[in-house]
C-alpha cells in the first residue's frame, strides 16, 4: 500500500502501525466480516455441501470470511457425490444457512458449463431499466414464475 493515496484517503479502513519486530512501519487493513456470503454454485446437497465447477474466484474465501452463507444452486445432488470426492467440496455444510435450488440462477450471466454466453437481450433490458429507473420491474420480469 506504500505510495498509494488510499491509505490517507480512508483512515477508517487503513491504519499505519509500527512494526512490533522492527523499526519500520506497516499498513494494516481492516478485516471485513460479511453478514452473508451469497454464492451461486453448480452442485449442492440439501445440507449445504457445495461444488464449484470451473473458476471459483474468491467464493471459497468469501464463504469463510462471512458469518453465514446462502447458496443458490443449479441442482441438488446426493451427499454420496461429496463423499466420493471430498476434496472437491468447495463449501462445507457447516458454513451454510440456506440452500435454494435455482436452475439458471446466474442468468442473464454465464454459469460454466450450464450456459456459456451472456443473454444479451436481457442484459440490454437491464441497461435500459437502469436509465429509466425501472430495475424493480426488470427484477419482476426476470423472476416471473419463481418464488
Amino acid at each position, binding site marked *: 500500500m506504500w505510495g498509494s493515496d488510499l491509505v490517507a484517503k480512508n483512515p477508517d479502513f487503513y491504519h499505519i502501525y509500527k512494526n512490533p519486530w522492527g523499526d519500520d512501519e506497516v499498513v494494516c487493513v481492516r478485516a471485513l466480516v460479511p453478514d*452473508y456470503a*451469497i454464492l451461486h454454485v453448480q452442485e449442492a446437497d440439501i*445440507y449445504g455441501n457445495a461444488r464449484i465447477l470451473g473458476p471459483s474466484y474468491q467464493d471459497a474465501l468469501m464463504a469463510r*470470511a*462471512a458469518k453465514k452463507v446462502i447458496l443458490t444452486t443449479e441442482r441438488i445432488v446426493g451427499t454420496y457425490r461429496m463423499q466420493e470426492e471430498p476434496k472437491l467440496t468447495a463449501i462445507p455444510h457447516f458454513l451454510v444457512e*440456506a*440452500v435454494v435450488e435455482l436452475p439458471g440462477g*446466474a442468468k442473464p*450471466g454465464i454459469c460454466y458449463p450450464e450456459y456459456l454466453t451472456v443473454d444479451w437481450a436481457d442484459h440490454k433490458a437491464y441497461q435500459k431499466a437502469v436509465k429509466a429507473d425501472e430495475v424493480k420491474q426488470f427484477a419482476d420480469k426476470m423472476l416471473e414464475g419463481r*418464488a
Partner: protein
Amino acid sequence: MKEKLMSLSQAADLIQDGMLLALGGNAMHRNPTLFALELARRPLKGLKVCGAAPGIATDYLMAQVDTAYFGFFGLENEAGLAPQMRKYMEGDGPARAIEGS
C-alpha cells in the same frame, strides 16, 4: 448435518437493512443474479457490499447500497461498465466507494 433447503423468498428474508453482503462470482460469471434481483425488488436499504471484483449481481443492488468495498467493480468485455454502480456512485452519488486494490 441439518437440512437447509428453502425457497428463494424464504432465503431472501434472511437479508436485513444495513447488512454487509459478499456476492460471489466475477463480472458476468457465476453471479447469484436471481437472488440479487429478488433483493432488488424488496424495500431494503443501507446495504453494504464487498468483494475483490464485484460483478453483475452486486450491480443489481446498488440502488440499495450505501457503501461498496472493492478492488475492481465492472462487468468486463462487451458488458462493459457496471451501470447502477456508476449511477449511484459517480459524482456526489449516495453510494460510497472504498477502493482497496
